[in-house]
């Protein structure tokens, strides 16, 4: 009896929440695509604290590899590009609410995320989980971290993974800067993050006493995302095609080199996989 009552009240609440979500993919309304075209401006959510994928240049503009991809999308659509800085913990919400039209924000492609936003394939990049730790500690394997305090970033999916797998005690900060400062202040023994980002930090010369000592785990492709309702419509198909072409003609590999990112096997493999049979 009680449950029945509870159920009806929760369902009522749910119906209220659901009404904002358009019917799924049965018919394409292409709302976002049409809005972008009539407005003449594509609003893309990118990272602003993730060098060199999305970061602020000295004049304050957001630049980086993913911003270049966003620019390519805007150019192909013949509209202007506007970038919005997003965080790991709000990027999907921004897309859902329509604050951004497209998200290219170093997001790992996870099954539960596919239920919330329209993740387009192919994936445009990949990264694994690793740590940056002081050379003095000489970690060699993940098990060395058991029970130790490790700084992390709110919103990263592997916080949970390493907690459950290795019993690491994650201290999660809201921003990368705070987390890395806490590592410098010796509040934790390591900083757990994407290996690609740690790699570029280490090569920046500001982290000479630190290293990335472990074997990367959970290699996880990154994805761009459009609103869920547009995934199988014009917008989603366009982004899929754009990403495919950027793999096929080597643009992504060029961009990687342009931004000084250590070359990943993933992009090379994808290029080979999508190679044109006529050439």
């Amino acid at each position, binding site marked *: 009896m009680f449950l029945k009552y509870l159920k009806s009240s929760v369902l009522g609440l749910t119906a209220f929440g659901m009404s904002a979500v358009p019917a799924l993919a049965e018919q394409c309304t292409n709302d976002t695509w049409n809005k972008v075209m009539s407005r003449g401006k594509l609003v893309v959510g990118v990272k602003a604290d993730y060098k060199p994928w999305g970061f602020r240049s000295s004049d304050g503009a957001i630049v980086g590899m993913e911003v270049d991809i966003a620019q390519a999308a805007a150019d192909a659509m013949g509209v202007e590009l506007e970038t919005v800085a997003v965080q790991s913990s709000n990027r999907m919400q921004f897309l859902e609410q329509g604050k951004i039209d497209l998200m290219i924000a170093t997001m790992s492609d996870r099954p539960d995320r596919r*239920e919330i936003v329209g993740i387009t394939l192919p994936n445009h990049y990949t990264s694994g989980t690793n740590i940056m730790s002081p050379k003095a500690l000489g970690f060699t394997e993940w098990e060395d971290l058991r029970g130790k305090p490790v*700084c992390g970033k709110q919103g990263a999916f592997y916080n949970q993974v390493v907690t459950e797998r290795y019993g690491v005690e994650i201290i999660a900060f809201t921003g990368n800067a705070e987390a890395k400062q806490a590592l410098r202040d010796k509040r934790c023994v390591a900083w757990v993050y994407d290996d690609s980002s740690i790699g570029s930090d280490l090569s920046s010369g500001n982290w000479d006493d630190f290293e990335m000592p472990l074997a990367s785990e959970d290699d996880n492709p990154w994805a761009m995302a459009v609103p869920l309702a547009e995934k199988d419509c014009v917008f989603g198909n366009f982004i899929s095609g754009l990403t495919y072409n950027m793999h096929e003609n080597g643009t992504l590999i060029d961009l990687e080199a342009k931004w000084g990112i250590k070359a990943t096997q993933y992009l090379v493999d994808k290029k080979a996989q999508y190679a044109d049979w006529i050439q």
Partner: protein
Amino acid sequence: MLESFSDFFRELADQYPRWNFIFFYEPVQWDRIMKGLRYTVVLSVACVIFSVIIGVVGAWLQGSSNRFVRNTVQGYIQFFRNTPPFVQLLFFYFALGQFTPTIVGADGWTETPIISNVGWAIISLSFFAGAFNVEIFRAGIEAVPESTQEAAFALGFSRFQVYKEIVLPLAFRVSLPSLNNNLVNLVKTSTQAMAIAVPELLYQCVSIWNDYPSAQYPTMLLLFCSFVFLVGILVLGMHRWEQKSRIPGYGG
């Protein structure tokens, strides 16, 4: 009953992917919520106590005959009342945290500061709310009639005695409604401790909805309910106190 309770929410999550009340059927997530709740309660209780002490002492020092003491209190109020608590937290933990003694861990590298992030959160939030409390108590003190104090002085009370025995008990009664407001705000401001990774309720909730995007709305609902409950207890207690300490014919 409990079994069907969690089954109900598991079923609900299957039917409505945006309403995954995961903490009602996964013990791990439930433990996270409980842990967060404990930290929030500890933070709130400690900050409420310390901020009231700061308020009482500060208001007394404000009436000091020493100009230097008065100016110091004034400076403290201006600084803490006029700057965002979020920035204060970050500054206390990162900037001032550098100067506190540390204990070097067994690995020879980690340095555990003697004041933890929870400690800094309590200090910083207490000082923040304390600045408001000083002003609140001052208003209460000013409402105590001059003649009452003079009468006490005439009976041979010292300045401290007058403050402790006459002024403060009367001022407290006048201040309670505004104190109540400020303490309610303080409990809610404790969520900002998330900035320095204090694992309180908001921190745990954000972590859960980052791990399970489908649990976002339910977790937000849980946050609302928890704070309505926590603040409700505080307000109830304050009202009881207000009623008990009421002097017929004095004040509201």
